[in-house]
């Protein structure tokens, strides 16, 4: 096993709640809500109108510019509106709303056989693939590094370090072949020499499964379990010992990192012509009645999923889209699952943490110890509260990856990562 990166935390994993639940396909909802901006970059532009009939897999909104992504309809049916609809962030965002009709019709792209690197990237773009680990960064952009930075190694990110989430784990067990095929396609696309699938030690069985059927050109690497292992920079550090420079990207050290589910999407888009319109998510937490790993159409409402899985328990206090370290707490449940949604986690009141507004630092130094970016969160938090832009920048506030390790560990229950986010926006505002 490799050495871990420095810093980080060991939150309770809670993976046992859903790790043995096989992936099941959820009955499609009557209606899907597709936000036009569910990826990093420019929102897509609708190319259908209300009352238009669409088929499953049909392109309904086009990418705008290079950093953007296509959106396809996950169901066959009728576009009923293009309007502002509540989203996870609590803000209403422009969304396509499609009502489902029973139909076997489906659109697929032409499968590619022995594709050129360029056509793989082109297909990934067509299929609207974005990072499915949570960041939702358009994958074709990552597959097109600048020429002066050749990528020699592709790392497939099977860390899944967020507590509760078990999608990547299930996929590694159940869809092993597709992961291997997708990983090789990604390697081909960027012309890398090596592919490494990196998995945390708490998923050793998944690592063994992959290793048992991998061709020799794929290495499987086991890493000590630690949060935030799934952070690109820290995964690269742990696997290869390379350190992505400040404000740099993985390609600066010749690496490309792709999430497990993303490479499956790449495989399907290239070899079967299926665009990205559905994904697997974990539904877990002490306050859900039926923990599951389910495949759902993008655009399915959280409320629908929770209802069909038997609802929430009486003491449900918080519903999170994503994992409990970085996910968003929902104020309402009629918001859609998007391409970047990795799970729905419902916490009971005894699990939910309470952060303290008095914001007293006892200088215990634990945040400094756990910060994987080697920052001083206690100081950045205070500077953020005081709005000291210069001091924030001097203390490298922009390097914070917002993993939440500092907040988690703080015995005074300061929500440091939140104070730092505020600090970042103040610094940006002042420096404009």
């Amino acid at each position: 096993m490799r050495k871990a990166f420095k810093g980080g935390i060991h939150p309770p994993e809670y993976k046992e709640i859903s790790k043995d639940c096989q992936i099941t396909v959820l009955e499609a909802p009557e209606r899907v809500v597709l936000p036009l901006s569910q990826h990093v970059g420019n929102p897509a532009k609708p190319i259908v109108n209300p009352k238009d009939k669409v088929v499953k897999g049909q392109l309904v909104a086009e990418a705008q510019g290079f950093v953007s992504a296509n959106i396809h309809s996950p169901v066959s049916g009728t576009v009923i509106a293009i309007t502002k609809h509540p989203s996870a962030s609590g803000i209403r965002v422009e969304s396509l709303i499609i009502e489902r009709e029973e139909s076997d019709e489906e659109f697929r792209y032409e499968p590619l056989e022995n594709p050129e690197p360029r056509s793989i990237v082109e297909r990934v773009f067509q299929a609207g693939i974005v990072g499915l680990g949570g960041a939702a960064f358009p994958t074709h952009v990552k597959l097109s590094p600048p020429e002066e930075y050749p990528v020699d190694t592709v790392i497939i990110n099977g860390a899944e370090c967020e507590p509760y989430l078990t999608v990547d784990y299930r996929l590694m067990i159940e869809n092993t072949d597709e992961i291997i095929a997708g990983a090789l396609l990604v390697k081909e696309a960027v012309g890398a020499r090596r592919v490494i699938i990196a998995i945390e030690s708490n998923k050793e069985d998944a690592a063994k499964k992959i290793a048992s059927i991998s061709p020799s050109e794929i290495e499987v690497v086991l890493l000590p379990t630690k949060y935030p292992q799934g952070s690109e920079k820290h995964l690269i550090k742990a696997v290869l010992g390379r350190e992505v420079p400040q404000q740099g990207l993985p390609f600066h050290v010749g690496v490309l990192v792709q999430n497990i589910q993303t490479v499956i999407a790449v495989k399907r888009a290239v070899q079967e012509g299926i665009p990205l319109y559905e994904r697997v998510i974990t539904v877990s937490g002490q306050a859900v009645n039926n923990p599951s790993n389910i495949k759902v159409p993008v655009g399915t409402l959280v409320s629908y999923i929770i209802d069909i899985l038997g609802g929430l328990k009486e003491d449900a206090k918080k519903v999170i889209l994503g994992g409990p370290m970085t996910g968003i707490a929902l104020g309402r449940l009629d918001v859609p699952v998007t391409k970047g949604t990795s799970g729905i986690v419902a916490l009971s009141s005894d699990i939910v943490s309470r952060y303290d507004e008095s914001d007293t630092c006892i200088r215990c130094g634990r945040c400094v110890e756990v910060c994987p970016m080697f920052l001083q969160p206690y100081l950045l938090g205070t500077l953020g509260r005081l709005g000291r832009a210069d001091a924030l920048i001097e203390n490298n506030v922009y390097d914070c990856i917002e993993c939440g390790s500092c907040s988690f560990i703080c015995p005074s229950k300061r929500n440091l990562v939140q104070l730092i986010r505020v600090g970042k926006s103040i610094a940006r505002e002042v420096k404009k």
Partner: protein
Amino acid sequence: MAELKEEVQTEKRKLLVTAPPHISHPDTTQKIMFTVVLSLLPIVVYDIYLFKIYAIITLFFSVFGAVFAEALIQQIRRMPSTISDGSAFLTGVLFALTLPPKVPWWISFIGGFVAIAIGKQAFGGLGYNVFNPALVGRIFVLLSWPKHLTSDWYDKVKLDAVTGATPMFVAKQFYLGSIKIDLSKFYEVHFFKNPYGSMGEASALLILVGFFILLLKRIIDYSTPLTYVATVGVLTALAGRDPIFYVLGGGLLFGAVFMATDYVTTPITRKGKVLFGFGAGVMTFLLRIYANTPEAVAYSILFMNALTPLIDIYTKPRVFGAKKR
């Protein structure tokens, strides 16, 4: 076009919406403070066994003075009370342990009060004080009522019939050649049962027990106590004096384990902690050998407390991805 009605929420319940992360480590400030108190318990119990009611009175009035000061000042300033975080309570206990057991009760009370009022609250409360509050209290009462504070330690040990004061004073006399004794005779006294100094110094063994409790519970890092004690030991040996006597005697062990590891007033990073321990060690050595004060450890730690903000600035960690310096 059909009017689109918003989806009706099927689950009607109040959901908590806050920024991530949504889970946290079970340790709290309160838990940490009371774990430190727990680590002091062996010493406290031993003191009560040795000094009976005197130890109880000194402890009680010190803690009462400290907690009372915290409550009073927060009341006056209309601030929310922080007594329940245990920090004032801990300061009271620590301060008591810097006192000899038979000190008058009002000295304990005033010292505990000053420790919190001037040592902590005057700076803005928990987290903002520059100096170790318990040591501020200790130095305050020492300078105000020295007669009540300096023990006639050597008289009472009565291993040799020479008058003297503290162990450090005895050692000084010995190396000046004015008395003839065997310093190694005192090792055992210091280690197991030393009822002649401050209450915290009653047994080096129990200080070590407290040290291991703090390490096991991951409350403190070993680097400050270790570098501090090692620096004193090595320098003393280099100066041709008995390092074991100098390490075991006086307040060094107690100060190194319980005072030099105070979160608020010592450096954040390990590098800083090592520097702090080293600096305190050099200071303690110099004060013990060359100065005429019985408070080498207290002054050294307070001196390093003042340097802590500077140490923090110069021991900032290298940011991930930054060029190696």
